């Protein structure tokens, strides 16, 4: 006889916003690098908090860059956003083997790719569709892979752009307040100029969260785990949990 947990019927257990630098793929820094390990620990803490109730589904919202001057990638190779997301989920003990359907079968992540040229309304539509796909009992963990500007300093990958800091500050404020209209209202043209690989996934995520919280309990208790840019790229780490 199994007794369902009190929150067994919820569509969403929690959510996280995680950055996606390749640095977080295990081994890619060579020996461990202190700044990267600090970021990793923050990501794992966020995942552990948001997934505390053993999710049955994990939905990974991840950007897919449009072809650019980024070397030659194999067409079947997942984008960094997905590689980093999977690596962090593995390290947090949330790999696919731990996910089960109500019937007990294993299931993989649901990966939702958001192309780098998607228009804002299409992002929001995609987010609403994700939300509507979560039924009572889904007990889903929503993971969005997104980071801010890559033009924060003179040594940043994209060199210094003075607009980077205010942009990142507004993103961070929206994430901290679980302010979905603000997060969903990011200026995609500005985000692209600032090399923010997170804007479209965030728009999608914001629409999903707004839809879910509009039809259920609105509280989702945000927590900031990290917000810094040690390499000139802005990495916010936030978790959300149903109170």
């Amino acid at each position, binding site marked *: 006889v199994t007794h369902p947990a009190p929150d067994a019927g919820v569509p969403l257990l929690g959510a996280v916003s995680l950055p996606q*630098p390749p*640095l977080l793929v295990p081994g*890619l*820094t*060579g*020996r461990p*690098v202190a700044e*990267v390990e600090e970021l990793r620990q923050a990501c794992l803490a966020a995942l552990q908090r948001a997934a505390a109730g053993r999710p049955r589904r994990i939905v990974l919202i991840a950007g897919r860059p449009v072809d650019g001057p980024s070397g030659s990638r194999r067409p079947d190779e997942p984008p960094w956003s997905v590689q980093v997301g999977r690596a962090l989920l593995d390290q947090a003990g949330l790999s696919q083997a731990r996910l089960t359907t109500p019937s007990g079968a294993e299931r993989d992540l649901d990966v939702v790719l958001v192309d780098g040229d998607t228009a804002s309304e299409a992002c929001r539509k995609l987010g609403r569709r994700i939300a509507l796909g979560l039924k009572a009992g889904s007990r889903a963990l929503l993971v969005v892979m997104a980071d801010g500007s890559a033009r924060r300093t003179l040594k940043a990958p994209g060199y210094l752009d003075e607009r980077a800091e205010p942009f990142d500050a507004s993103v961070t404020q929206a994430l901290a307040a679980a302010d979905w209209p603000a997060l969903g209202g990011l200026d995609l043209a500005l985000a692209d100029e600032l090399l923010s690989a997170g804007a479209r996934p965030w728009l999608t995520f914001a629409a999903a969260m707004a839809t879910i919280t509009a039809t259920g309990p609105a509280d989702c208790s945000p927590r900031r785990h990290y917000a810094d840019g040690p*390499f*000139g790229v802005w990495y916010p780490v936030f978790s959300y949990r149903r109170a």
Partner: protein
Amino acid sequence: MLRLRRHEFADDALLIMAIVNRTPDSFYDRGATFAFAEALDRVEEVVAAGAEIVDIGGVKAAPGDEVDVDEEIRRTVDFVAAVRDKHPNLVISVDTWRHEVGRAVCQAGADVLNDAWGGPDPELAEVAAEFGAGLVCTHAGGVPPRTRPHRISYDDVLADVLRRTVGLAERAAALGVPAEGILIDPGHDFGKNTWHSLEVTRRLAEMTAAGWPVLVSLSNKDFVGEALDLPVDQRLIGTLATTAVCAWLGAVVFRAHNVSETRQVLDMVAAIRGSEPPRRAVRGLA
């Protein structure tokens, strides 16, 4: 795997054997560590700089004042015991061709006998077998210890190197020296002119393919000086270039004066080879 008495090293390790001379007249340091205390300080220094092995020598290689067995023992044995006492995890090698010295230093705690003159005393390998010590089997072209090469010639220098070093290694193994502690050394400049030393360097892969771990002793030697026409105090860069080439071609142990510089070169080669990860790779990955 390389095992030098109780010390074991992975197959892909690149090891530094730091030179510690208890001589008043060696060519590079000119007696700087002849005194006991200075030599002990030198050991501290090379260990801190990343050496896994020290090679203690009591007789300079070049011709000069006679150093008999008793004097060589006086210079090395107590010092080996002191180093053994202070550095239990350090591999201690002693550069000697004499079995009497070999026995005394093994009793004092030496792990390796560096027979740098190509085996003129056949009993040295028996001592290594008796103590289970490592043994370096070197090519010196058959010249007597402490002589300079004079108009020496080879049909094929590397063939002679291989024939003699592999022959010494196989003999040592047959005598009971632990096979995983036997190294071969082409003996740069020993019984060789500069052309010979450059050729054995260029063809070192043929030596590393022979199946025995290869030690090279390159540090500030005359073939570096003659290749670049530089005096002994200006040969570091040439030595390091040679070190990188030998490491790439498969040498395992590097006998060296300049330990921190050599460590950096070997770490870089290991990173290029892929046997060690970069210390910190973040460029382009943020």
